[in-house]
């Protein structure tokens, strides 16, 4: 029987990698999930605990995929604590993907938003000149730096890190770096995934200079399929119309960068 992407498939976690004290990557075998597009996500079931949306991380082994999760509330902590040999459920992939341009590309990732960027890197062409910005609060929270370099070993590329406290890389918010870079270079495409304020500022910097920019959004998600309504951002549903939106749209959206909804559906300021 063909797999229906809306039905949960139970997989076994085969490997757990500690990326930082609060971020772990869980690797599992799944042909379908290994081949998704950047920006797409899965709904991940931690039996007895919760189900939550997760970007689908690449794996170095073919036929495998992963989740890179930051320990936060009970749901993500549940996933964070899954051990090798334990089972989780996955459904999807859901969501659209980036329009990947050619030429000079700028990728901006913060926190687990980097997961989406790592998959995007799988799709750049050898002729592309790629700059990747990694933003983190402090040195301990930087991850995927080596991975980024190795994924780009055949490209002209730069990997820049910024930490809020300056403990590693440049000091300051990653968005300041973005502003500087787009001022210097007319990129053919800017892609961003991370905390909403970071995305909002990046979109602003690029779009105001007529640079093509896309962001992969996060919202509270219950169903992942366009039924529950919890993931709305303006008129759009992130799970079904997104996760990727472009600058044209986002700069007109009344909620992007300003509001999100909590579990009861009440608008809350960022």
């Amino acid at each position: 029987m063909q797999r229906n992407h809306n039905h949960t498939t139970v997989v076994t976690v085969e490997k757990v990698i500690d990326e930082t004290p609060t971020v772990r990557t869980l690797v599992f075998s799944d042909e379908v999930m290994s081949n998704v597009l950047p920006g797409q996500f899965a709904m991940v079931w931690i039996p007895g605990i919760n189900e939550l949306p997760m970007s689908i991380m690449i794996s170095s082994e073919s036929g495998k995929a992963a989740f890179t999760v930051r320990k936060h509330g009970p749901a993500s902590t549940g996933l964070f604590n899954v051990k090798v040999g334990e089972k989780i459920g996955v459904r999807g992939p859901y969501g659209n993907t980036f329009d990947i341009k050619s030429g000079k590309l700028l990728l901006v990732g913060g926190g687990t938003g980097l997961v989406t960027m790592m998959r995007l890197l799988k799709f750049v062409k050898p002729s592309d000149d790629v700059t990747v910005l990694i933003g983190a609060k402090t040195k301990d929270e930087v991850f995927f730096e080596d991975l980024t370099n190795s994924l780009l070993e055949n490209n002209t590329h730069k990997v820049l890190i910024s930490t809020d406290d300056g403990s590693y890389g440049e000091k300051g918010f990653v968005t300041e770096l973005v502003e500087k870079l787009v001022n210097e270079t007319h990129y053919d495409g800017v892609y961003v995934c991370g905390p909403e304020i970071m995305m909002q500022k990046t979109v602003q910097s690029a779009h105001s200079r007529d640079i093509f920019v896309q962001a992969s959004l996060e919202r509270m998600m219950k169903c992942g399929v366009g039924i529950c309504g919890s993931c709305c951002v303006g008129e759009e549903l992130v799970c079904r119309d997104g996760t990727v939106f472009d600058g044209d749209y986002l700069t007109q959206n009344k909620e992007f960068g300003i509001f999100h909804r909590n579990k009861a559906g009440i608008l809350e300021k960022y």
Partner: protein
Amino acid sequence: MTFKKGTRTSNQLLYSKLCPLIKVEPSLETSIGQIQLKRPVMLASGILGISLDVFNRLHRSGAGAVVTKSLSTEPWDGYPNPTIFSVKGGGWMNAVGLSNPGAANFAKMIEPNKDVPIIVSMVGSIPEDFELMIKEFENCKVTAYELNLSCPHVAKVGLEVGDDPELVKKIVSTVKNTTDVPVIAKVGLGTTHYLKTVGTAVESGIDAITAINTVRAMAIDVETQRPILSNKFGGLSGTPIKPIALRCVYEISSKYDIPIIGCGGISTWEDAVEFFLAGASGIQLGSAVGDNWIGVFNEINDGILQYMKKKNYSTIKEMVGLAKKS
């Protein structure tokens, strides 16, 4: 010879009856008791139902009205995930736990609304809950209120209310005394026969009935050996329940003289027409949005129009209840 939409007169209708060769351009307008709608297909409660912006989009996409997520007096977070999943044999199962921003927050959000016919769905345990919520909507344009007497998976509200005839009587009477806006009761399959609940609501002055809500159900994951929903039990919706919903509409319309909104598993224009023929003057759909996305409203509207042309009907009303004559 055709007439423009919305310009039909009773004379023209009469004319078309006398000369069946003259085709009257059909209209999708319908009235469910006092509720007048431009199109008979509505968004059911709980689906995409928490944002006015999304309501606007759905309305533009062909929904004749949108029913809000069932609101409570206070905001509710609902149950932890998994709360919704696609059933292997077809349809969807959910136990969202009636998560909602609460009536007050919600009313504030929809205050600016002018264009969209909004039907406000509510849950509560006592008549005063409903009274309180209706007060919150004083400054809003509300097309109707829908009393959710049939949610199958939250304690003390929904079906637990619908299954108690005394409570139904009190709630309906209270609400009818509180507002002049039409009030709909939404029923479903509970522990008390739903026809009894309908009877009680009708006696207590309800304006219309929506039938049906989801059907209490369960699914178990054989790998992990536990119920899939965090709440264990949930409500089954979508294609699996259509034949059950259709018989309920037929049974209600055979027994009571009350306007009916059909709901349950509708995803095509044929489904919609079946419900009209069984006695519904309007329909709601939810799961079909999950299956076919938002285009489903206009697909169904178009299909109904084609059908009406073929059968030479000019109004929805002409087909309501026809299957009972055979």
